């Protein structure tokens, strides 16, 4: 065999080898960036958060982190601002999610028969939840503006006293709940609508033959059938409500008089305004713990009920 022919055969073998190697490993190569990014954005920050939560972290980079054990967690018991934020978060979550659930379910039951034909209406109802939370917050800020806001203009024209919707201590939390209900009721509504569409017809026909009233059918058939959907809807909304930030940040900044300060806003303040990431990590872990406990308990209850 000539020298040049040998060389050509060798390079062909090498090329084929590379192709086979790339055939076998390319999928891993292509996946690698995503895996690396996921590790960097989820696993590493979680470990870092646990580590920070047991340290006093100085904003001065030349000072070492001091191990403080559970001190940051113990602070939660005596920190008045944390307790206020916790109470406000619980109030917001319970009230907002309850209203959203009742309205969403009620609307779904009312419109179940018609909505399948009215796709336009379904699209319109979906708009609020498609909007970025920051846009929703700014829109409601303009609506609530005491001097120039549309809500007070209507009140004034109707001869009713104008209100400081986001500025009054008795109305501020209510105003945030209204904005949240406006945005997230469609989410519950759509889930309930999907649940209602999947209900079997036979049990209702049998119940009707047995003379069961509509109320009886709703209570003994619809609700039990819908339970898995209800569980998912409530769980998702509760988890989201516990993380409320945008509406409060834009509408009230946690005021007036701390009446709307929620946990996410307080964590943000502690971490970035007061430069105390160790304590902020401890509060975040507390919220994470509460969310896990709550969701586990909730799912267990729903499974037992099934």
């Amino acid at each position, binding site marked *: 065999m000539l020298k040049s022919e040998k060389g050509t055969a060798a390079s062909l073998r090498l090329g084929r080898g590379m192709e086979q190697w*790339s055939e076998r490993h*390319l999928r891993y*190569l*292509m996946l690698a*960036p995503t895996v690396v990014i996921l590790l960097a954005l989820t696993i590493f920050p979680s470990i870092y958060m646990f580590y920070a939560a047991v340290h006093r972290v*100085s*904003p*001065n*980079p*030349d000072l070492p982190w001091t191990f403080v054990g559970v001190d940051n967690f113990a602070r939660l018991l005596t920190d008045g*601002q944390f307790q206020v934020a916790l109470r406000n978060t619980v109030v917001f979550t319970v009230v907002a999610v309850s209203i959203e659930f009742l309205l969403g379910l009620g609307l779904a039951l009312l419109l179940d028969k018609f909505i399948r034909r009215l796709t336009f209406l379904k699209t319109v109802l979906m708009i609020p939840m498609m909007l970025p939370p920051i846009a929703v917050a700014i829109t409601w800020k303009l609506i609530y*503006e*005491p*001097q*120039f806001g549309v809500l007070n203009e209507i009140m004034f024209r109707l001869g009713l006293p*104008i*209100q*400081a*919707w*986001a*500025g*009054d*201590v008795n109305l*501020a939390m209510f105003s945030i709940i209204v904005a949240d209900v406006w945005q997230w009721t469609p989410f519950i509504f759509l889930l309930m609508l999907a649940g209602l569409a999947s209900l079997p017809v036979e049990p209702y026909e049998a119940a009707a033959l047995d003379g069961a009233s509509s109320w009886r059918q709703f209570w003994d058939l619809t609700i039990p059938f819908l339970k898995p959907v209800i569980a998912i809807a409530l769980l998702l909304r509760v988890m989201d409500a516990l993380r409320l930030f945008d509406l409060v940040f834009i*509408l*009230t*900044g*946690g*005021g*007036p*008089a*701390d*009446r709307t300060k929620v946990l996410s806003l307080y964590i943000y*303040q502690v971490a*970035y*305004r*007061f*430069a105390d990431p160790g304590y902020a990590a401890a509060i975040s872990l507390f919220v994470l713990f509460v969310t896990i406990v709550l969701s586990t308990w909730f799912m267990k209850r729903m499974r037992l009920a099934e």
Partner: protein
Amino acid sequence: MVRKLCLALAVAASALAMSASAWADITILVPSGSEGDGLRAAAADYAKLKGTKVETVQAPYANVFEQGANAGATKSGVFDIILMDDPWIPFFAENGHLEDLTSYFKNAGVEGPDNDFLSKSLAICRNPYNEGPYVCLPYVGNAQMFFYDAAKFKEAGVEAPKTWDDVLKAAKMLTEQGGGRYFGYVFRGGQGNPVVADFMPIFWSYGANMFNEDRTKVTIDTPEGAEAMKMFMALRDVSPKGVESYNANEVGTAMAAGTAASSINWPNWVATFEDPSQSKMVGKISYSPIPAGTKPGSSEIGHWTMGIMAASKNKQEAFDFMMWATSPQQIRISAERGNPPVRASVFTDPELTKQEKFRHYPVLMQAIEASTPRPRHPKWPEIENAFGIELSKAVAGTIKPEEALKNSQAAVEEITGIK
């Protein structure tokens, strides 16, 4: 072939991403709004003039602090210069985020900034205040002024308000006549920075202060503090409903729309008030220094200052830019772009002061010279938050004013460790 092309593209994209952050000679972190816009424009001029690549990163007010603090804590060196609000200086300086400028002045053959800068503007750039080395240079000469509708005040029997009693007298009458649609006074009552910013000048006007001279005692809950609080509450009673959530925008809008007769505000609002496309009050708003209480009135100083980040890799280039940007010529250009100056020669430049849009300059210069800095403490953001919560409660009426003072005293003692 397609696979090979994909791989090549991925490698090229990664290389580009890695080098993108390193293209500029100087990177400057600036706030949104006129202050940041002004420095950004100056940076573009500098780049053209000197051939230096200058990158400006613009962020909302609170995010500038956060990004600066993060960059400082991680020694990332991502920013070479930060345009800071002056109450942040102790935090940045005492946590080692700012470069001491002494050696740079020495290398430039000067002892420090020249005497054309206003003395109060320079005092805030030293840490500790007015004593330590320079850690920044002043760029935007903000200090609060008192804004009022002179015609309305005259109708209410007050020619030019000299004291807070004058303001209250006129404001009370105007609010009573306003029928719930017009108010004699408006202020930033929003929890945190807003309410503290609008309370401090009144607090100082009654001889109160947050700490005693040698910083061994917190002095919020004092008879002077109580008098200031009494006036603040009286002014609240003649302000619009909802003032508890007001920030600068709401106050500025109320003044520009002619629904409020007076307020404390920052000078950058002058441009809005004098712009017919944004204001119904063009030529109608008068400016004065902060009214007196039992002591002469004093504005809160709120300068924007440029400092070099300690982790910067381009410190000399950054210093050269700062010296150029704060030269008399550049401060004059900055003034024409809408930012209040920090140099006496620009404040008194007849070419500027004869123009209607700069008619507030004599008052502003006086306000800066009579100004007081917010208490200089590295934990100021935390102190401001705690004080702001108690003031917000008092404004909202959920606690008595005297309770707000007592609680603030306890909270600031707890934060600072000063008992």
